[in-house]
C-alpha cells in the first residue's frame, strides 16, 4: 500500500505533530520505504494463529484493594510548563 502525502498529513494530525512542508515530503518517502519493507509480513500464513501482545503472557495480576497516598499536588505540578498551584493551564479551549 503506497503512502501518499495526504496520508502523512492525516497521520500527523492523529499523532499531534506539526510537520513542515519539507518534513511532510521526507516523511512520505521514508515511511513509504519502511512500509514497503514491512509489507513482507503479508506473505506469512497466520491462519489460526493467536495474536501475541506480550512476551510473557501473565494475566489477571491483582493488587490489594487498599487506598494509598498519591503524588502530592505540589509535586505533580512541579514539572508543568504552566500551572496556577491548583491545576495545569492550557490555551483557551472555548470561543475566540
Amino acid at each position, binding site marked *: 500500500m503506497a503512502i501518499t502525502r495526504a496520508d502523512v498529513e492525516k497521520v500527523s494530525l492523529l*499523532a499531534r*505533530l506539526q510537520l513542515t512542508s519539507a518534513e511532510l515530503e521526507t516523511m512520505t518517502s521514508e*515511511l513509504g*520505504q519502511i512500509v514497503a519493507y514491512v509489507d513482507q509480513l503479508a506473505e506469512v500464513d497466520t491462519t489460526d*494463529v493467536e495474536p501475541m*501482545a506480550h*512476551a510473557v503472557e*501473565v494475566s489477571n495480576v491483582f493488587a490489594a484493594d487498599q487506598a494509598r497516598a498519591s503524588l502530592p499536588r505540589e509535586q505533580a505540578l512541579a514539572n508543568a*510548563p504552566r500551572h496556577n498551584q491548583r491545576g*495545569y493551564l492550557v490555551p483557551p479551549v472555548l470561543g475566540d
Partner: protein
Amino acid sequence: MTNAMLAFHPDLTASQALALLTRGELSAVELTQSYLERIAEHDATVGAFLHVAAEAALATAADIDSRRRAGQSVGQLAGLPVAVKDVLCDSRTRTTCASRMLENFQPPYDSTVVAKLRAADAVLIGRTNMDEFAMGGSTENSAFQITRNPWNLQCIPGGSSGGAAACVAAGMAPLSIGTDTGGSIRQPAGLCGVVGLKPTYGRVSRFGLVAFASSLDQVGPLAHNTSDAALLLETIAGHDPQDATSLDTPVPPYTHTIDQPLTGLRLGIVREHFAEGLHPEVEAAVRGALEVYRSLGATIKEISLPHSKYAVATYYVIAPSEASSNLARYDGVHYGHRADESSLLAELATERKQLAAAGDQEGLDNQDTGLVRMYRRSRAEGFGPEVKRRIMLGAYALSAGYYDAYYLKALKVRRLIRQDFDAAFAEVDLIAGPVTAQPAWGLGEMAGDPLSMYLVDLYTVSANLAGIPGLSLPCGFTQDGLPIGLQLQAPALGEETLLRGARMYEQATSS
C-alpha cells in the same frame, strides 16, 4: 581528532574491587575518585555522559566508607560506581532521555532499578548518553551530543545504550545500566567490546523506566566481564508489585554459580544467521568462538528459526505502535517541553486571516484549535527526527484501515517467532551467533537511511519479541581493531545458564 584509542581495561574488575573494599584495602572514595579522574580526562572526547554527579558520588562513597569502618552492614555493591542510562527516573537528578522534550524534567520519584542500586549502596556516578527515547542504534539520535566508540573515535559506539557501553569500554565506570528494546544493550556492548545482558522480559522491574515499547523494554547490566554483569543483574532483578508485568519468581544467586561450567552443553547455531550480509571477519570470529566451545566439550547443532527473517518487519510495526501510544503523554501540559503560547496563537490568527481572505471555508473549519496547535507545536519542537518518524509509523500502523494488515498481523507473526524459539530450545540449551552483521561503522555513515539502520537489528530483535534473555560478549577483533561480539540466547528465565555458558568461553580465552 586523530584515530586515538581510549579503550581501557582497569586493573580491577568490579568483583575484585568489591573484595578489596570489603577487606578495607581500598576505600570507596579512592575508587570513585579514580573513575572521576578518568572521566575528567577523557569524557570530553568520548561523550559517554550527559551528566556526571561527581559531588554526590563522592559524598555517597564517603558515607559508605564511614559505615564500613564503623562495622555497620552495607549493601551488595557497597562502594562500586555505577553509571545509569538517562532513561531511568532518579529523583535526585534530571532524567532527559537525551531529548529536548525532557531537557528539564526532574522526576518526582525513583525508578525501582535506581532505588535498588541505592539500597545496594552503589555509587551513582552519572547519567549516560543514548539515542533519544532509546530509538536508534548509534547514539547519534541524542539531542545533546554524540558518543564516540572508545576503540576508534571515528566510529559510533552503537545504541541506543551507546553511552552505557562506551563508559565501561573507556574505563570510566566499572558497571553500567542500559535498556534493551530491540538490541539496545547487546548491540552497543558488542560494538564496544564489553559484556551486555538483556534479561527475560519481566525479570527486572520497568517501574520508573521511561517507556518506549512496553511489551519489549527490559533493563539490564553492562560490564567488563560476565561475573561483574552477574553481580549487577543479581542486584537489580526481582519481583516488583509496582510493575504488573514483573515476574514473581525468585532470583537465582547468579554470582555463586557462574564459575560452574555447563556439562554436556548443547549449543545451537541458527542457519539463517550465517546468510548473505554477514561480514567475513565477524563470521570468522563467531565460528572461532564455536570451536572454543567444541573444545570445551559442547556439541554444536545447526537449527532453524524459519520466521527470523520477518523479525525486523514485525519489530518495526510493534515497537513504533507502542511508542506512538506511550509518547502521546508528552503534550506540553503535564511535564516536558511546551511551545511558546503567544507565538502559536499569533500564528493561528494569521492563518485564519489568510484562509478567510481566500474564502477557504473548509480550511477554516479544519483549522487546529489553540489547544491542538499547542500539542502539535510542542511535540514538533521537543522531538527529534527519529522519534517523529517512529511516532508517525506507529500512528499509521494503528490507524483505521491498517490495523489488521499491520499491527494485528505483526502480533501473529510474533507468536510464530516465539514458537520457533520454543522448538529450538527443545533441542539445544543455548543459541550462539553474531550480535550484529558488521563491526562498528563510521560516525554519520548511516544517517539519512533509516531502513538500513533498522536492518542492523536483525540478530537482536527476536529475543525482545520472544521475551527471552540474550547476552553479548567480546569474541575478537577485526584487523582494524574493532571489537566483535558473540551473542548467546537462552530460554525465558535462563539467565543462570546464559551467564555460566558465557563464563566458560571467557575463562577459556582469557590470558
